[in-house]
């Protein structure tokens, strides 16, 4: 490596914090030389990741996306002509569509709200050291290591109407007289899948919030204590405002993931009974299994579009954070 390029690299190294330093500067020979060099470095470092994601994610997604505008049925492969927006119209015309959409809303909000509240409480209480705190954290972390599909199977067994332990415990506690057929009744089935998802997702909130809490300087609390602020006031006027952006980010990221998380329901109820626990993405699985790839793709594109709206909020929240803190 030559002396020139060494000094050149050194000059550009602090890339962070000075956006596009080259632009607006006179392009001297030497500067252009290392600018190209820098561009090549960026390209070389990004290339493997870009190639993998382009070939195995974006290419199939785009190829799948165009199926949304074609007649693409496994039952009729001879006719894959363009049909415009027909598949989208079919999605909305489906009599089950309003149920599926409503279930998706219940699924997202019914999961997010308890996860956030319980996760927040856990984080607040885990902030202070106590004996075995490390062990406790490791134990409540376990659900996160398990696949959504397997969690579905696990809770399907717990909620089994005949030999499920949930019915047994409730009967022993005297809360019910007869075993409940949890997964056969639309209302209780939804409750059951929500409980499973809360079990799985609380940890994520607890971790994110705990990490954010640890970034709050102690002086803020000391000052609040001197002012005689009570617990509730401290919580609402210091803790929550300070970690507000982390909270917003976590909620939005989780909304994306939960909305787009068919695995648990797929393993637990398969969308039943009578479509009553289907959400948009399990519905998409069902349509795929019926062989109508065109309509399933239309549904997939709708999912991406809906989630992109959330992403805009996500990015706005990030930007706000940078302005406030640094």
């Amino acid at each position: 490596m030559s002396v020139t390029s060494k000094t050149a690299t050194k000059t550009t190294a602090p890339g962070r914090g000075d956006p596009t330093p080259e632009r607006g500067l006179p392009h001297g020979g030497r500067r252009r030389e290392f600018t190209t060099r820098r561009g090549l470095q960026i390209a070389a470092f990004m290339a493997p990741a870009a190639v993998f994601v382009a070939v195995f994610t974006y290419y199939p997604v785009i190829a799948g996306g165009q199926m949304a505008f074609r007649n693409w049925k496994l039952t009729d492969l001879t006719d894959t002509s363009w049909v415009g927006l027909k598949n989208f119209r079919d999605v909305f015309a489906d009599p089950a569509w309003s149920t599926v959409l409503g279930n998706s809303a219940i699924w997202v909000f019914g999961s997010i709200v308890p996860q956030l509240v319980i996760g927040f409480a856990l984080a607040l209480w885990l902030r202070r050291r106590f004996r075995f705190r490390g062990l406790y954290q490791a134990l409540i972390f376990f659900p996160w290591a398990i696949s959504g599909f397997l969690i579905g199977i696990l809770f399907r067994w717990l909620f089994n109407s005949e030999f499920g332990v949930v019915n047994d415990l409730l009967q022993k506690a005297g809360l019910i007289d007869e075993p409940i057929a949890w997964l056969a009744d639309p209302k209780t089935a939804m409750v059951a899948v929500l409980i499973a998802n809360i079990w799985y997702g609380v940890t994520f909130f607890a971790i994110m919030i705990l990490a954010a809490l640890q970034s709050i300087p102690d002086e803020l609390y000391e000052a609040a204590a001197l002012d005689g602020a009570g617990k509730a006031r401290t919580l609402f006027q210091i803790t929550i405002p300070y970690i507000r952006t982390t909270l917003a980010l976590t909620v939005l990221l989780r909304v994306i993931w939960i909305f787009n998380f068919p695995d648990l329901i797929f393993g637990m109820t398969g969308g039943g009974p009578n479509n009553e626990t289907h959400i948009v993405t399990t519905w998409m699985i069902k349509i795929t299994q019926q062989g109508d790839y065109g309509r399933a793709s239309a549904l997939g594109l709708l999912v991406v579009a809906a989630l992109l709206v959330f992403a805009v909020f996500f990015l706005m929240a990030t930007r706000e954070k940078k302005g406030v803190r640094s």
Partner: protein
Amino acid sequence: MIGKESTAGRAVKFTFLGVWLLFTVFPLYWITVTSLKAPGDIFRFPLAYWPERFSLENYSGLFGTADFGTYLTNSLIVSTVAGATATAISMLSAYVLARFEFRTKSALLMAALVTQMIPSFIALGPLYLLMTDLRLVDNRLGLILVYVAVCIPFCTVMLRGFFENIPDALEEAAMIDGLSRFAALFRVLLPVMRPGIIAAFIFNFVNCWNELFLSVTLMNSDSNKTVPTALNGFISSFNIDWGSMSAAAVLTILPTMFLFAFASRHIVQGLTSGAVKG
């Protein structure tokens, strides 16, 4: 720290923590107990909260009639290779995204974020056709390549958070001493990054280990199945054999649980620095 805790406050706190711990651990306890009962005892009243007779029959069945050992091996190979490859590749892209400013950067980050929103089902058909053309259907290498692509976006964002927590001065000093950027990355930055890299690898490994829909689509012969595909096969029949299923679940959960317990602190750090800053 925050004020003093009252006795009542402590009581509420530890009750809550205790109840949550019970709720978290009980389902796992129950599936383990079920797996250790003799098959006939699973369907007997009153339900036994502690097996009257311990039996490994459910487990031996998995390795006798079913070929669960092969599935475990397949999952282990695919998840390890894909997880490690994705971590290595993401390290390079994360480094660039943390240390350089360039025009397409926010577009690249957006492209990574969008991958999180795509339901995998939209890509399954074309992916299957692509893999057929590459002669990689029902082939562990094929699944590995796809998993690497699945892992890269989140892993990149996560590792980027780690890189940003390390001062620039570290590799600048190394480069002044005459190392190339690449050498500085490997010899100076990576040792400091070790916790982050371990966390990223474990995270990738667990994601691949748990992935269902892609493996069901791409692996069809019995000798190539991964664990989730095999589990899916167990439930598609109408009567679930709950004894074998519980044993299979325990065998599937245990490895990832050990990994998470071993590295939970690293993972917490990795998730928070990655996701909060992403």
